[in-house]
């Protein structure tokens, strides 16, 4: 119990430090003023979401190979946590775009790819609700998760190429947009703080899933008896 509280406090402090850095340490951007600082939240969330989905991918592979329920628990936890961070990206996109460009949405490579990514993992979670038998649910979602993740580079690659054909308003931090070295440092620190948050959320969600699974097993055993 104490460990959990300490961990949560540590993460909270890290996030606070990252926020401070975003506002006070990173230099001002000449063209965009204050709003550009949302980039640190936006890009760090994107990277963290991808990290979570990568963990999901590894968990999926391990489940198919080993068939141990804990890999299924890790997979669904990582997918949900990844989806949460990905949602942050999709929400901060318009928040950034509107003051800068006057439009709510830009089909920039990151935003577009992130949207598809978001849809892929929403479908992953929906698939789980549509397969009742737990072992099959775990196997099918693991297999779909594997297909989805290997699709990710293809999605990002194809959309980036498409962007080259149809230039779109660019969110800061897109490849090639160029940033001050201090901004990079703040960005990486923000990412580090987000990864700490991700780990915390993963652990909680995993424990919840383990309990839920035990409950399901007990319910079935009761029904049988």
């Amino acid at each position, binding site marked *: 119990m104490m460990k959990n509280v300490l961990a949560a406090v540590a993460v909270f402090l890290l996030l606070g430090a990252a926020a401070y850095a975003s506002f006070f340490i990173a230099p001002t951007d000449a063209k965009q003023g204050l709003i550009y600082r949302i980039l640190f939240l936006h890009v760090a969330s994107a990277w963290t979401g991808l990290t979570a989905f990568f963990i999901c991918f590894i968990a999926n592979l391990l489940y198919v190979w080993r068939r141990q329920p804990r890999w299924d628990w890790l997979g669904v936890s990582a997918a949900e946590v990844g989806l949460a961070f990905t949602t942050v990206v999709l929400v901060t996109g318009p928040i950034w775009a509107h003051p800068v460009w006057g439009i709510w949405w830009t089909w920039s490579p990151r935003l577009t790819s992130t949207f598809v990514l978001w849809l892929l993992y929403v479908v992953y979670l929906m698939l789980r609700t549509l397969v009742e*038998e737990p*072992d099959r649910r775990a196997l099918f979602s693991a297999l779909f998760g594997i297909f989805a993740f290997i699709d990710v580079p293809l999605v990002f690659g194809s959309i980036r190429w498409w962007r080259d054909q149809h230039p779109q308003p660019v969110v800061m931090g897109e490849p090639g947009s160029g940033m001050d070295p201090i901004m990079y440092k703040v960005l990486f620190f923000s990412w580090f703080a987000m990864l700490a948050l991700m780990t915390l959320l993963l652990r909680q969600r995993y424990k919840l899933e383990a309990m839920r699974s035990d409950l*399901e*097993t*007990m319910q*079935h*055993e009761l*029904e*049988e008896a």
Partner: protein
Amino acid sequence: MTPLEFFPIGLRFENIEKRYGGLLALRRVSLAIAPGECVVVAGRNGSGKTTLLRVAARLVRPSSGTLSFSSQPNNGEEIAVRPGFVAHATMAYDELTAEENLLLFARLLGVAQAENRVETLLHEVGLSERRASLVRTFSRGMRQRVAIARALLHEPSVLLLDEPATGLDPQGVAWLAAALRRLHDSGRTILMSLHGESEISSLGTRAIRLDAGSIAADTRTGATFRSILTFADA
């Protein structure tokens, strides 16, 4: 591809467990079937008979435990075996004719001289005249005969049958009993699930009762045939 040389093969279930979610269909079932035995499995619906057979057919992957085949009664060298399997369902395409179905599976199995083999089997099961009819038009009894023909295409050493007499009229049952007797006499190992006593159950050299996924009685360990086959439905 030439078919394997036929010699008797036994099978062995070791601690086979199969769970579907919280439901244990098979609970650590261990069973050794000697080459040439004809084993009858009885049990209520839901006792695990179908699962046991499907595990033996390698259609169902057990949650734990191993299944092996060998030509020695106990722990012989393992061989790759393709059992013949007859299930509840026809396992044939409604939209193809009897002949097309059998040819399809014969070719997939790599049966030598597939056309001749199919011809022979159609004759053996008494469907030569209906060879060019779509399986969709077949009665239950005729479908069962297609299923049996399909199971025998590659001359398997091991035959697995899941309640094969279901839906057959008395003539059909008599025919099936005769066919199984011939197969058993030729040395094939047979594992079949049945619902009760019949002409077919009398072919068994051994009987086992499954109850909620476990072996509750075995003629090998003293139970009588009759008691196993005429259990009362609780």
